[in-house]
């Protein structure tokens, strides 16, 4: 049984107040809070274990390198990857997808080739493909969601044509909470010889992930959404794809030899990690993933499902609230607007005065907002450390917002 009150004690920030009220942190979709073990690991790394990695032969460099490199195995375990050499450590999903765009897609695509993506992608899984559209004439093929916010896997598969070279799709919408059947999509895409990239920024936060089971070629995650430090992350790249991929950023650490007329790159995955990495962030990221695995991602998922059902019921009962997206398989993310003239920023300003942190705006999902015909919404995104009482605090504050703005 998951004990939320005990778990909350692991997060020092959750006991603070904001505007004189207990903090109700519902902006987990943007970034999660950090448990004490991660904060301690970061402090310890700087206080006792710090030097550059993969370089010196001295004691501290070896120690930092060992700590840093151990994270590759932790990520592999977290994602269910068979081989830790299929894990590239980076600063997060944005870097991961850009690496695939420049290092893999640009190498393997030419003008007229297509990338299939859904309208509910985050800008991090859109803009890198627009770069390829601008630079190489690659065509973006969009798949709509239905009016409940469901993405039909078959619609994605049906969008694949003879010129499609990649499917890039989210595991979970950061706006609607829609969980996408990426396994079915991968099966259908692979049947037509098309690789699949999954944006796991949200998906990996709320439920166990197994890339071996999904079968996808790329799976990108972000450390700061997984209780780790900002500037940490990783991407799983299947061996075969890694062999097809060229380094995207050049510099130290990713080379074996550099001469005036040629360079010899390091072995994968090292050749995709140029320059001094986020050493301490990555060490903290490893501790965060260990923390999550100790809690149990299955237990987290079960608890969050319960929280999601309760929030859906309580928010759904507010007749002045418009919830965006009621997909069949929904994670703990709720986007909404209010009746009347209240703007999302008005709502979030009022909630903030009650100590409640939500996000307001476009949520880095322009095409989805266009699809839904709205310019901005508020988003309450839950984590495993949120409680039933916090749902009540949100509902209460929404009544106030409606009263003030209605």
């Amino acid at each position, binding site marked *: 049984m998951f004990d939320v009150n005990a778990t909350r004690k692991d997060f020092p920030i959750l006991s603070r107040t904001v505007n004189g009220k207990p903090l109700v942190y519902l902006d987990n979709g943007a970034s999660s809070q950090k448990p004490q073990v991660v904060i301690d690991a970061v402090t310890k790394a700087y206080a006792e274990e710090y030097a550059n990695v993969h370089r010196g032969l001295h004691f501290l460099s070896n120690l930092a390198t060992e700590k840093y490199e151990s994270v590759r195995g932790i990520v592999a375990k977290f994602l269910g990857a068979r081989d830790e050499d299929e894990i590239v450590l980076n600063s997060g999903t944005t870097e991961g997808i850009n690496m695939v765009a420049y290092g893999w897609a640009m190498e393997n695509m030419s003008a007229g080739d297509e990338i299939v993506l859904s309208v509910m992608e985050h800008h991090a899984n859109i803009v890198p493909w627009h770069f390829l559209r601008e630079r190489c004439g690659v065509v973006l093929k969009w798949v709509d969601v239905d009016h409940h916010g469901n993405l039909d896997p078959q619609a994605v598969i049906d969008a694949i044509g003879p010129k499609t070279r990649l499917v890039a799709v989210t595991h979970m919408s950061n706006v609607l909470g829609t969980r996408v059947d990426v396994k079915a999509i991968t099966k259908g895409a692979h049947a037509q010889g098309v690789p699949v990239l999954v944006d796991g920024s949200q998906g990996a936060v709320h439920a166990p992930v197994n890339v071996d089971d999904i079968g996808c070629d790329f799976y990108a995650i972000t450390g700061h959404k997984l209780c780790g430090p900002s500037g940490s992350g990783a991407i799983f790249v299947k061996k075969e794809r890694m062999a097809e991929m060229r380094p995207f950023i050049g510099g130290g650490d990713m080379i074996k030899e550099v001469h005036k007329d040629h360079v010899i790159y390091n072995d994968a995955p090292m050749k995709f990690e140029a320059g001094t990495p986020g050493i301490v962030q990555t060490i903290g990221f490893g501790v965060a993933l260990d923390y999550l695995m100790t809690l149990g991602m299955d237990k987290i998922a079960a608890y969050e499902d319960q929280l999601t059902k309760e929030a859906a019921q309580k928010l759904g009962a507010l007749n002045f609230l418009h919830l965006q997206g009621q997909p069949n398989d929904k994670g703990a993310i709720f986007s909404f607007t209010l009746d009347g003239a209240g*703007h999302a*920023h008005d709502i979030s*300003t009022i909630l903030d005065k009650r100590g409640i942190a939500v996000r307001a705006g476009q949520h880095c999902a322009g095409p989805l907002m266009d699809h839904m015909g709205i310019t*901005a919404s508020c988003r309450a995104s839950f984590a495993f450390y949120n409680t039933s009482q916090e749902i009540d605090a949100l509902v209460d504050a929404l009544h106030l917002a409606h009263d003030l703005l209605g």
Partner: protein
Amino acid sequence: MASQAFEDIVDDFEFIDDWEDRYRYVIELGKAMDDMDDALKVEANKVHGCASQVWLHITKSDDQFSFIGDSDAMIVKGLIAVLQKLYNGLAISDARGVNALEELGRLGLNDHLSAQRSNGLRSMIERITASVA
């Protein structure tokens, strides 16, 4: 030196301790403001640096300074109304002498004066001060 209309708000605020009622008051000021003609909602009148949409249309005639404005966010629209009270009807030379940040600070609307760029109050004030400089 702020206008009398603004001093009236300051007086009212002295009797409102509760932030909810202050917000209610500011929102009501926004609602009571004259509508801005959509024809004036053009790029030249748009104030950038705001997360919501904001327009200010400034007029200066016979040495009198005034502006009208609008926003799709109600709290921001209320803040525009407060700025109107602060500035409208002043002679341009008097408008130049207004320290808007300090005056708004007297209303305890400090959240909106902080470094937070997104609400755009600073951008609005910059637009006004630039026009009377």
